[in-house]
Structures are given as C-alpha cells and as structure tokens.
C-alpha cells in the first residue's frame, strides 16, 4: 500500500449526489412544502412561498455541490503502522488507527454503491466501530484488497 495520501474513487461524488438527491425527493422537498404551507397560515402566502423556495434552492445546491467539497476534503493513507483518514468540510477530522489494533475490517455495499461498482470499508477496533476509520466509496477491488491487507495485521488488542 502506498504511503501517500489517496483520494476516494471519483464516482464517490456521483454516489453522494444520488444519495442526497433521493433523500431530497423523499424527505427534503415534502418538508419544504409542509413548512411553506404551515407558515402561510401565519405570514402572507407570498413570503411563505419565498421561504419554501429558498429552502428548496439551498437543498438542491447542497445536493449538487456538497459532495464535491466532501470529495476534495477526503484523504486516506495506509502507512507502515497506521491507517490515516482525513475528512470533513466544516468540522475537520484526522484519524489514525494503529494497524495492530484493528480487530476486523468489513466491506459493505448498498444497491447504489453496487450500481456504481463502489464499496465502503469499515474498520473496527476494540473501541467499537470507529466511524472515523471508515472509508466510503472506494472501487470495490481496492476496498477488497485493502480489507484483506488491513485485517492481516494482528497484534495485541489492548483489551
């Protein structure tokens, strides 16, 4: 494995846009409608529609642009002794998981990920699943070889 910082698979952006888009359709847009209708009984309906519209535009914007930002801010590296993951657009986070503390490694795939040929890599230590140690949206082959590589290193688990 390389020592340098790696990025996720570029299709990660597509995946996240699809996921956010789906959520927007199912939850986001109905909620905007409910808020607008609710407000229209308190304030003039024009203002209510305006607020609802702004919310919709904001959410659509988030759906389109946020995944790019997330993608640009995500890096990972398997180093000699640890797995380093760096993530977060506004709240930044750097995580280091010593390889000898890894209990097991999972790869997971939802339907959308399968469509795009991507997989998630989840790293577990004795401290539970380290959400920070999970790497979303890798090419499935990369995820699988990483899983095999990472889970091979054993050691004292410190428990």
């Amino acid at each position, binding site marked *: 494995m390389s020592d340098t910082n790696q990025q996720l698979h570029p299709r990660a952006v597509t995946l996240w846009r699809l996921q956010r888009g789906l959520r927007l359709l199912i939850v986001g847009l109905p909620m905007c409608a409910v808020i607008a209708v609710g407000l229209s009984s308190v304030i003039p309906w024009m203002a209510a529609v305006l607020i609802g519209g702004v919310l919709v535009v904001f959410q659509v914007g988030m759906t389109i642009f946020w995944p790019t930002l997330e993608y640009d801010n995500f890096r990972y590296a398997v180093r000699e002794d*640890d797995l380093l993951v760096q993530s977060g657009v506004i709240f*930044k986070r750097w995580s280091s998981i010593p390889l000898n*503390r890894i209990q097991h490694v999972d790869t997971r795939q939802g339907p959308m990920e399968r469509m795009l040929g991507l997989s998630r890599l989840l790293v577990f230590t004795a401290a539970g699943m380290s959400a920070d140690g999970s790497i979303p949206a890798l090419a499935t082959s990369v995820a699988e070889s990483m899983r095999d590589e990472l889970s091979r290193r054993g050691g004292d688990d*410190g*428990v």
Partner: protein
Amino acid sequence: MASDPPDESPTTPFIRLPATGDDESDPANAPTELERPTFRLPLEEEPTMRMWEDEIEDHMTERSGDPAHAGLPAIDSFSAQDTQEPAVPARQATPDASDLQADAPTEQADPWRGLHPASLAVNLVPRAWRTARAAWPLLLALFIGSGSLGMRAADLLILLAFAGMSVWNTFIHWATLRYRMNGDRLEIKSGLLNRQARTIDPSRIQNMELVQNLFHKFADLVELRIETAGGTSTEGLLSALSVQEAKTLRARLANVGSLALEDESAPQNAPILKMSLTEILAYGITSRTIGTVAVLSAVTLEVFMQFDDEATKEIARSVEPGILVATILIAFAGSWVVSVGASFLKHYKFQMVRTGDSIKTEEGLTTQRRVEIPLRKVQLVRADEPLMRRLMGYGTIEIETAGLGVLEGQVRQAEGVVPMVDRDELGAIVQAAAPLVETDPWTAELKPAHPRALWRASTAGIIQSLAIAIPAFIFLDILGWLALLLIPLAVVNAWFDWNWQGWLVTDKAIISRHGFLNRQTYVLARDKLQSVHMVQGPLMRMHDLGRVVVRVAGSQVSLPDVSKEDAARLMAKLTG
C-alpha cells in the same frame, strides 16, 4: 400433574414442527423445535412445577453419569426419574446426533450446575421491592388517589403486569440457568423460549463483582456478575450461588484467567485505602444535592397532583414566598439526609486492596459489593473533583475497563469506584490502579490549554447563550432580561474552565484535565490506545487550534485545545 399450564399439552402447536428426517426422534413424543441450525444449544426439557420440585431436591447433585445423556435423546439435563414421568410431555426436542455429541460430557467438562435452590425466594423479595420502587407513583395513585374506578383498574393492571414480568424473569433465570466449566471455558446457558448459550474465556474477563444483599447473607448466598468487553449487559450473571460454590468457581476461573488467585491461607494484604465514617458521610453531603432536590420537588408535586388537582392549584395560589423558601430549604436538608444515608448504606466500610495483579474493592452495609478488577484490564482512570468535595480536600476515583456494566437499570461507565480519596492520596490511588502510568497528575506540571482556546470557548459560550437568551428576551418579559445575564456568565464559565485545563503526554501516559465546577482528570496508559484523532471545528479553525481525542476500549478522552501545529505534532507522537 394436574396443574400443568395449558401450553404444556402435547397438542399445542407452539413453535413446533413435525419431526421430519430425524431418525432418533419419536415424533409423537418429541417434536423438533424450530431452531437456528448453527445454534448448538443442548436442549432442555420444558420445566413443569413437578419437575422443579424434584429439581430442588437433587439440585446440587452431579449429573455427569446421567443415563439421560446417553440413552434418552429427548431429555438431556434432568435426572432419570423425570424421564419416567409419562405425564410430563417431552415438549422439547430431540437433539440430533451432533447436539448430543456436543453436550456429552468430555473429560474436562464439568457437569452442568444450576443456581442455588434458595435463590429464587431470596431474589424475589428485592425484585419485588425494586418493582414497587419503580412503580410507586402508580401504587400511591392506586391506594390513596382519587381517580375513577376504571383508572384504578388500569393502574392495577399495569402494576400486575410489571410485577408478573419481574417475577417471571426472576423465575426463568433461576429455573433455566445452568453453568459449568468446560476445560478452560465458563459456559452459561439460560432461557426458556429464547435460549442463550454463552462461552466466556476467563482471560477475557474484565471484572467480576460479588454482590450480597441482606437476604443473600441470611441464606449464605452470593450473586456473581462477570463482565467481559463490549455488550451493554452483564455477560455472566449468576444469581445466586452458595458462597462456597462461588468461591470454587472463582478459584477455577482465576486458575486459567486473568484474575489474581486469592490464596485463602495467605495473610491478606493491608488495604491501600479505607474510608472512615466521616469520609462516608462527607461523600453523601457532596453528592449531587441540587439534582436530588429537583427530583424530589417534582415527585412531591406529582404526588399532590395525584391527590387532587384542584387542591394543588389552591395551594399554589395561596403559598407565600417565605413558605416557598422554607420548603426549598427543607427539601435541601432532606435530600442531604437521603444522600448521606444512601452513602452510608452503600459505602459502609469501604476498602480497597491489591491482591496479586488485581484490585479489589469492598463496601456496603446491607448490600455488600466486592469488585475485582485485573490490573491489566484497566483502560482508564478518572478522578472527579467536584467543587464541594475539592474544597473538603477530596476526590473520587473511577476505574474503567472495557466492560460496560449495568447498575440498577442504568449503564454505568466505571466498574470500580473509590468514592472518597484524600487529595494527597489521589496520585497514589491512580498509580495503584494504573501502574503503567508512572506519573502523578497532581504533582506533575501539566501543560495549559492554548491561550487562543479561551477565545474559542468564549465565542462558543456566547453563541450558545444567545441561542437561549434571544428567544427568552423576545417571548418572556422579566425572565428575558435575566436571560441576558447568561452571556457574561458564559464568558466567566469559559475562563474558569480554560484556566484549569491541563494535559500531559509522557512516554507511558496521557493525562487530561477539564472543568472547574466538576474538575475531571483522565489518566490512561498509552499502551491501551485504540486510535488517535484530531478534530477542528470552524471556530477552532478561525483561531488555528486543534484538539486531540484518544480512544481506548470503552471510552474516549479529549485533550484541551492546543495550537493546530502542536496538535498535529502530538498526534504524530502518539501514533509514531
């Protein structure tokens, strides 16, 4: 037996399948239970009252040579006379050949043992008491309330359901639990409909607790609680065994496991720490008084409401400020008495001993608790010094392992608690619980948080208080003005917190201290680190700060904010 419950009848279709493809079974007699194929639980016969009477008699006898194991596939765990009872339907199932194989006693496997016969009676009393305590508003409403007959009937039903459930659970635990040592492993199985079989590797035991309440003491019983890592419940609960049996089991576990073997004949080590009566009472006085008062007031109000809604309103209207203040003062005094009393009962004669490589604490007047923690299982030591206790010159030390225990229905973090430790001894106790640490956080010079962290904390505090103050200011009149006071308070609070923060990372240990009102010092051995993180929120980025967070099994600890550069360096040091 005539009083067999209806679902005992052989015609009941209750989770049964016709036995197909099982050569050894007699389909009329022993239908196969639906079962997960991978779940190799030796099946047990449904207990009936009759059987349990028999069971009590020969409860403690060994059954390893039981012919039931070899000859009668339908019934594997009960003595032969049970199987000769034709009235007892063999509702359970015929284990297939491999199940039998698994259950057949091997050379190292001990026979299955059950709980002590008397423990059912002993457990029911405290169980009933706990249920009553949990449901006391209902009880009160039932007996002296003014609700309609229907309401009372509903209350009664709920109460009976509660009571029935807790009696049932206690009964099932007592009736179905079996344990044995199989070679090096402790095996525990239990359950009637949902069967559970568990194998515990003694070297994975995080801590062990022996609890003996008043009833246990009379019957010479003890409840054994074994915690392993993970999970949210006690992994091995044996309630209850005879004292002798518990000792035997413990010794066997200690032989193969991580617990230090207690040599009965050896002279006891001198306790590292003993709590005097004054200290026990002082601990009660300094315990969460304000919270208790709030709860008590709410409860009192609730009681009044139960009595009579109108009367309560009447009282509320006619009450004078003087009386109100007096009531609050009485409530404070009352809660102090309660918490002092609770502390006295709980921590009476507290002492902490180090035996071999374990730490043991012992405490309690009516209910005695003995906790044993192997030193190498200690993940984190935390010292709490709430302001009041600190002013008295004391602190509390909590020892955490990877096991998460449940105490009276609540998940508790710390497995070993040393309630009152003199300030001068805090370092020594931490040292005793985490020998790898080699640093005394009370004498070592801790590094401060970064000066800019004060700005971050103040800004965050101001934003938080604004979120409360602005709506309050808009919607409430006098209280709204008062809410504005939150803003300077937030800054003062930020300063106090910031000023007393400290951290230190040595070759062996990580120390982190936070808080003024409730000062907490976390001490952990670097040996135990599971992962290291650095986080940075938007405010921290504005001030170029970073915060290191470390995780051990069961907990995580944040260090105070330092400059981003220092945080990155620290992270590199911890992972390097």
